[in-house]
C-alpha cells in the first residue's frame, strides 16, 4: 500500500475504509525492518503495542464511525518518540549506555496526551546521548544516517525522529529542542519541526538536559500537522511549574493578525560562513512571503554573535547538575558508562560553576542572556516574526566534525538564541541543494506566538503549492 503522508490523508483514508489502522502499522513496521538497518533511526520498536492499539483503533472506527475522529483528534496517527520521552513499560535510554536497560514506570505527559488523543506508538528513536549533539553521531547506539543521502548526518540531537519522518517510518515524531535539536534535524531531513515557547508544553517525564532551555516539540511533513499535534500536547498538566496559566500574568497565545504581517530579516544571521545555497534558500522564502503581502523589514539582533558562548556556558552548567543524579543505584549503570560528549559537558559545566569561576562565566553568561532577550524584545516591537537560516550549512558528512567539539558547537549558531530567549521557532523545508540535500528556513516569534508562526508557515506552504515528500 502507499502510505498516507499527512494526518488528513490518514484520517480520510480510515474514514473512507481505504485502509485500516492495522494495515498502516504493518506497512510502517515492514518499511522499518527493511530499511532502518541503513538509517538507524529506531532504538526500540513497539510492535506489539502498535498492533494492539491499531486493532482497537479499527474497532473504535467500526463502532463509532466518523464521530470517533472528533472524540480522538489524532486517531490513527502513528508516533515515534525520541528516546528521551519516558514510556511506561517501554525501554527508554536517552541514547546513552547509562540507561541501556532502563524501563520507566510512568509515561511523560506528552506521551499520555498523544496516546489519549488516538496516537499509535510505533517506537523510540535514536538521538545523541542525553540530547548532546548536532549530528546524531553522539548516540551510544551508533549514528543515525540522513535518509536523503546516508553518507550525510541527519542533524541532531533528535536525529532519529527527524530521519523517521523523512524515511516514511511514521506519520509524526516527537523530539526536544534545547539549542536547536528539533529545528536543525528537521532542516537537515527536509521535514517541518516545531520548537514551542519555553513553558508551553510540559516537560514532565522527559529526561532533562538543560532545564532553563529544554522545550518539547515535534516533527511532521506539513505546518498544519505540526499545529494539530501542538494543540494536543500544549498546556498545563500540574507536574511542570513552568507550564502555568495564572491569573494576572498574560500567558495567552499571541493573536494572529489577519493582515499587515511584518517579517524581520536579521542582518546578524547573514554573515560570513553562511553557505551560499542556504542563504539563497532563505532569501527565496523571503520573496515568497513578500509576494503574499507580508512586509519584509531589516532588523538587527546585535548580540547574536555571543549566542554560542552564552549557550555553551548556561547549557553545560545545567547539564552537569541534571546528570548528577545518574549514580547507578536506583536505576541505570554507573557514571563510567557516560560517553565522551556527556563527560565533556559535565566537566565544562562543573568548571564554569566551580568556585572562583562562577562570576566570570556563569553569571556573566546569564547577564549577556538578558541582553539577547532584550534584542528580541526590541525586534518584536517592529515585526511579528523573524525569518532566518536554521544551520549555517546544509547537512555535513558523517565524521566531518566528530573530532572537533568546538566546530560542532558552532553549527548551533542560528538556533541557540531562540532557546536562550525562550521563544518559539518553526523550521520549514524549502527545497534541495545541488547535492540533493534538504534546505529550508526557520520562523522565530515572540513568546506564545505559535499561531502566528503556523499562519505564516501555512501562507508559505500554500503559496509554493507544497507537496509533502519522503526520501524513499
Amino acid at each position: 500500500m502507499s502510505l498516507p503522508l499527512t494526518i488528513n490523508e490518514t484520517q480520510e483514508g480510515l474514514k473512507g475504509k481505504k485502509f485500516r489502522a492495522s494495515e498502516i502499522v504493518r506497512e510502517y513496521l515492514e518499511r522499518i525492518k527493511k530499511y532502518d538497518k541503513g538509517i538507524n533511526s529506531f532504538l526500540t520498536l513497539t510492535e506489539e503495542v502498535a498492533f494492539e492499539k491499531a486493532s482497537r483503533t479499527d474497532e473504535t472506527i467500526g463502532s463509532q464511525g466518523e464521530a470517533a475522529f472528533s472524540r480522538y483528534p489524532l486517531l490513527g496517527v502513528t508516533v515515534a518518540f525520541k528516546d528521551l520521552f519516558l514510556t511506561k513499560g517501554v525501554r527508554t535510554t536517552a541514547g546513552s549506555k547509562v540507561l541501556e536497560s532502563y524501563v520507566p514506570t510512568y509515561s511523560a505527559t506528552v506521551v499520555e496526551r498523544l496516546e489519549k488523543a488516538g496516537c499509535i506508538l510505533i517506537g523510540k528513536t535514536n538521538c545523541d546521548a542525553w540530547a548532546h549533539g548536532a549530528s546524531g553521531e553522539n548516540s551510544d547506539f551508533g549514528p543515525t544516517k540522513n535518509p536523503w543521502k546516508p553518507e550525510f548526518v541527519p542533524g541532531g540531537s533528535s536525529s532519529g525522529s527527524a530521519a523517521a519522518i523523512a524515511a516514511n517510518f511514521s506519520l509524526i515524531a516527537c523530539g526536544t529542542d534545547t539549542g536547536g535539536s528539533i529545528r536543525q534535524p528537521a532542516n537537515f531531513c527536509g521535514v517541518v519541526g516545531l520548537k514551542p515557547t519555553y513553558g508551553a508544553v510540559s516537560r514532565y517525564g522527559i529526561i532533562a538536559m538543560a532545564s532553563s532551555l529544554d522545550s518539547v516539540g515535534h516533527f511532521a511533513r506539513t505546518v498544519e500537522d505540526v499545529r494539530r499535534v501542538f494543540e494536543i500536547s500544549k498546556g498545563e498538566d500540574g507536574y511542570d511549574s513552568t507550564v502555568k496559566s495564572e491569573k494576572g500574568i498574560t500567558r495567552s497565545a499571541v493573536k494572529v493578525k489577519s493582515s499587515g504581517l511584518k517579517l524581520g530579516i536579521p542582518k546578524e544571521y547573514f554573515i560570513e560562513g553562511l553557505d551560499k545555497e542556504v542563504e539563497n534558500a532563505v532569501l527565496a522564502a523571503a520573496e515568497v512571503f513578500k509576494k503574499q503581502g507580508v512586509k519584509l523589514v531589516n532588523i538587527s539582533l546585535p548580540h547574536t554573535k555571543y549566542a554560542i558562548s552564552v549557550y555553551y556556558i548556561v547549557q553545560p552548567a545545567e547539564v552537569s547538575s541534571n546528570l548528577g543524579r545518574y549514580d547507578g543505584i536506583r536505576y541505570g549503570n554507573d557514571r563510567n558508562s557516560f560517553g565522551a560528549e556527556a563527560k565533556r559537558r559535565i566537566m565544562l559545566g562543573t568548571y564554569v560553576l566551580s568556585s572562583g569561576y562562577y562570576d566570570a562565566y556563569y553569571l556573566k553568561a546569564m547577564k549577556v542572556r538578558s541582553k539577547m532577550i532584550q534584542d528580541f524584545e526590541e525586534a518584536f516591537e517592529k515585526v511579528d516574526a523573524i525569518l532566518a537560516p536554521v544551520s549555517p550549512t546544509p547537512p555535513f558528512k558523517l565524521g566531518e566534525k566528530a573530532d572537533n567539539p568546538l566546530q560542532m558547537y558552532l553549527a548551533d549558531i542560528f538556533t541557540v538564541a531562540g532557546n536562550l530567549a525562550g521563544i518559539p521557532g518553526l523550521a520549514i523545508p524549502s527545497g534541495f541543494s545541488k547535492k540533493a540535500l534538504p534546505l529550508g528556513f526557520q520562523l522565530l516569534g515572540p513568546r506564545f506566538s505559535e499561531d502566528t508562526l503556523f499562519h505564516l508557515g501555512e501562507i508559505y506552504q500554500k503559496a509554493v503549492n507544497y507537496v509533502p515528500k519522503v526520501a524513499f
Partner: protein
Amino acid sequence: MSKLTKKDVEHVASLAKLSISDKELEKYLKQLDEVVNYIGELNEVDTKNTEPTSQTTGLENVFRSDELKSQQGSTQEEVLSGTEKSYNGYFKVEAILTERTDK
C-alpha cells in the same frame, strides 16, 4: 582568561565523580581549553547595568495545593524495578564507612 591545566581537568572530573584515564585527560584538556578560550569572549560585553536571566517564563512562586495525588505515587515494587541490587525492599549500596584498620 587563564589557560586550563591538567590539574583543573582532574579537579572538575573528581567534583563530577567521573573517572578519566590519562589518555582521556590529554584529549579533554585540549578540547575543553579550546572551548573555555572561546567562551571567554563574553568579557568584551558591557553588562555593568544588566540583571542576569536564569529563566524566561516570567513566573514567580508557582504554588499548588499540598495534597496527595494517588496516581502520582509509585509502589515499592515500581521504585525498585530499576535495580537488581535490592534487599528486603531497600536499595543495596556500597558501604561508605569501613571498619577501622588502625585500632
